[in-house]
């Protein structure tokens, strides 16, 4: 019989060890899943985890890692601030979309003006759009005590509807022969988010992600606000005793995560995606939730987790095309990663013991 015993102090070693254990368990369980689908599990796992880094097409795929990890990091760091404070923004996808639309609208409104100010203005507008969309659940929560999980999630579907209207209606390319989608920013130099170093996938969004990781790390470790965020998440009553205003924290955390998601959307639409289209968003806002937890809500951990997640995306696509795996199987695989992470998470707070012997089993 296995028995759980609470540790007096959370184990630091396990806090860092569990993500690796979770990845390992995912490989094993995922391998079993792929084997059940009639594929060679070793080949699939190698295609997902090894080929994008060191395989035949690695020169191209490595760049794709940063392209995907950038927005994931940007969004996940914002979400992690809220999650640490016990404020659950599930609607980053919506904030990401609205940020992209607002930012792109600014660029398209001044088209074809060539000025150095266009792109910075668009970035600000993108952040503002995401912030504004996140303020809806924030204000509803502070004023009427609504549940931010439900409100932010439902607003994703509103944002998706607005996106389809934008792509087919008010932002449609007037010279696009009636096809859905806005003008392509790659042919509008002042508003373009180019690849900064050829072949690396590095664009302004990735730079922003690195900056945000550092800023968030400093905020959480050194700043009073970061301390208040952690305190509010761990012990809400103690936070009120320490003089933390719950409402201000809700506004800050939702606002910050919304703005960061908005930035991510703007960088995506002006860079890798190139235009506002019906489905440019590709679900980063939801995947970022997994990334935030996989990275233990720690900014540096999130950066690593985003790279890992990007790997499963890039490798998963490879596996889907080269080995004929259904794309749903890849998503199950990613789901397993979160599942195992949460499952083994308790090892940092509990130790497993064999009942009756009193000896440590693990």
């Amino acid at each position, binding site marked *: 019989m296995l028995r759980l015993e609470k540790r*007096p*102090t*959370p184990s630091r070693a396990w806090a860092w060890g569990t993500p690796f254990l979770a990845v390992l368990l995912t490989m094993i369980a995922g391998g079993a899943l792929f084997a059940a689908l009639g594929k060679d599990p070793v080949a699939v796992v190698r295609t997902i985890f090894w080929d994008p880094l060191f395989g035949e097409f690695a020169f191209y795929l490595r760049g794709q890692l940063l392209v995907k990890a950038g927005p994931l990091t940007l969004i996940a760091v914002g979400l992690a601030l809220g999650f640490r404070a016990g404020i659950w923004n599930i609607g980053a996808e919506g904030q990401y979309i609205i940020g992209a639309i607002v930012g792109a609208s600014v660029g398209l409104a001044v088209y074809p003006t060539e000025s150095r100010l266009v792109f910075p203005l668009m970035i600000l507008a993108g952040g503002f759009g995401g912030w504004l969309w996140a303020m809806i659940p924030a204000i509803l929560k502070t004023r009427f005590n609504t549940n931010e999980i439900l409100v932010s999630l439902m607003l994703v579907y509103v944002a998706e509807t607005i996106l389809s209207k934008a792509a087919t209606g008010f932002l449609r390319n007037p010279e696009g022969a009636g096809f859905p989608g806005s003008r392509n920013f790659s042919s509008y130099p002042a508003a373009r988010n180019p690849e900064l170093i050829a072949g690396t996938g590095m664009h302004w969004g990735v730079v922003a992600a690195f900056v945000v990781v550092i800023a968030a790390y400093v905020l959480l470790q*050194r700043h*009073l606000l970061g301390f208040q965020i*952690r305190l509010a998440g*761990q*012990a809400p009553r103690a936070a009120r*005793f320490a*003089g933390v205003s719950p409402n201000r924290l809700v506004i800050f955390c939702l606002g910050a995560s919304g703005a960061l998601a908005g930035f991510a959307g703007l960088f995506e639409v002006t860079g890798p995606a190139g235009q506002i289209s019906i489905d440019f968003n590709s679900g980063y806002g939801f995947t970022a939730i997994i990334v935030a937890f996989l990275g233990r809500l720690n900014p540096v951990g999130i950066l690593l987790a985003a790279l890992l997640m990007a790997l499963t995306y890039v490798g998963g696509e490879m596996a889907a095309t080269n080995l004929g795996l259904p794309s749903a199987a890849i998503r199950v695989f990613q789901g397993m990663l979160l599942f195992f992470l949460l499952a083994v998470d308790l090892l940092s707070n509990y130790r497993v013991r064999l009942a009756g012997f009193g000896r440590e089993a693990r």
Partner: protein
Amino acid sequence: MTQGVSGEVLLDVEGIGKSYPGVRANDDVSFAIGAGEVHALLGENGAGKSTLVKMIYGLVRPDEGRMILRGAPYAPAEPRAARAAGVAMVFQHFSLFEALNVAENVALGMDDPPPMRDLAGRIREVSEGYGLPLDPARLVGDLSAGERQRVEIVRCLLQDPKLLIMDEPTSVLTPQEVDILFATLRQLAAEGTSILYISHKLEEIRTLCDAATILRRGKVVGTCVPREVSARAMAEMMVGASLSAPARATGELGPVALTVERLSAASPSAFGTSLKEVSFEVRQGEVLGIGGVAGNGQDELLAALSGEARTGREVVRVHGKGIGHLGPNERRQAGLCTAPEERLGHAAAPDMNLVENALLSGSVRKGLVRRGFVDWTGTRAFAEAVVRTFDVRTPGTGTAARALSGGNLQKFVLGREILQEPEIIVVNQPTWGVDAAAAAFIRQALLDRAAKGAAVVVISQDIDEIMEIADRFAALNEGRLSEPVPVAGLTLERIGLMLGGSHGMHRAEAQAGEIRHAEA
């Protein structure tokens, strides 16, 4: 070996031992309880009393040793087995559902509850038979702490136990309620039920118990017949050192430091108590003791003083300046520090280490934050000063608050507030669940603070504590505060009446309130 009234041994514990990671909780513990005997288990916090009774009640399994109950080997695998063998336990923290009525709560705790109507009849019968009247149909949320304890006791008695374990039963009772409880326990003992009684309160043990086993650091360090030794002798056996009573300098009182005027506040929780026109003043150098049974508005009063709950500006005044509209940190800036009752989760964050917990309330007065950035070096130094000055036993300041024992964490929390040198300090239950030595230390620290000119407000359910350190006493009852009276010359009986709600001038009003309450 102690012998019961009838000379027959009910439970024999032989060489019991239990280890937890890093702690030897019990080491070769042996004692015996006679049938019909009231046996006290005495010891400081962390002496191993809880572990021992948990093993007897089947919650924890011993690593070594054996127990013999009524001549047969006894090794309960779970509480259900213990109950089947005739062992029942009343816990210090009640496990009752406030939204259910008495009978429903009793049924939930039984292994095999009878139909509800029969049960209600049995509850009435048993509770009245033992002088603990209870109405089975009342909601537990509406009961006082003493009545809630009756629910727990009646639940045990319905199962006709041979051994009743009581963990700190009087910590929530008024003196009158204690008398009723003791009468019940004596009646039970006379009928042949043995009682294992855990308490810190030595005078109680002297009046009630036939025998006592004293634990220190997991070992039995002595046994005695409590009636025949002094409370002081027992305390010294428990602590393993000699104790000194808190010393206080009787200095001149300064001007009024804290004024609360007609404070009324609704409780945020459905089963809380609203404060009704609470008024008092505390002078510099004075200790005001606010007594009262738990749940009469203590938490609400502390929240209104700490700034967690805000009031009208002039309702709370520090040195004559209205601060009722300010939040906790602005009040700390103004010189008012508070320490809530609940250590884990309110006064301290359980999973944060002591350095972070030092920052929690110390940031303003100790200047630990500069331009929004935390001075961790300074904070660590502050935490270390608290640990050193208040003798907090911990491996270091990097330890999580939840890993500290209750008494040590309490010393840390109190130390954190006192070392900020507040001009006014308000503490709620400063020594609750704290061992005798730590309690004496904390009381002395509060008196020292008062001697340096601070106004001190001690909210406590421990009347002895208030008598020991307070200059004036006021009782909190159903959210109303009595007129503070000097402690000198106050009798226990008078205090009991004040706690029960008859405060002279407030009497008629209080009764009117009760009538309204009954209608609602």
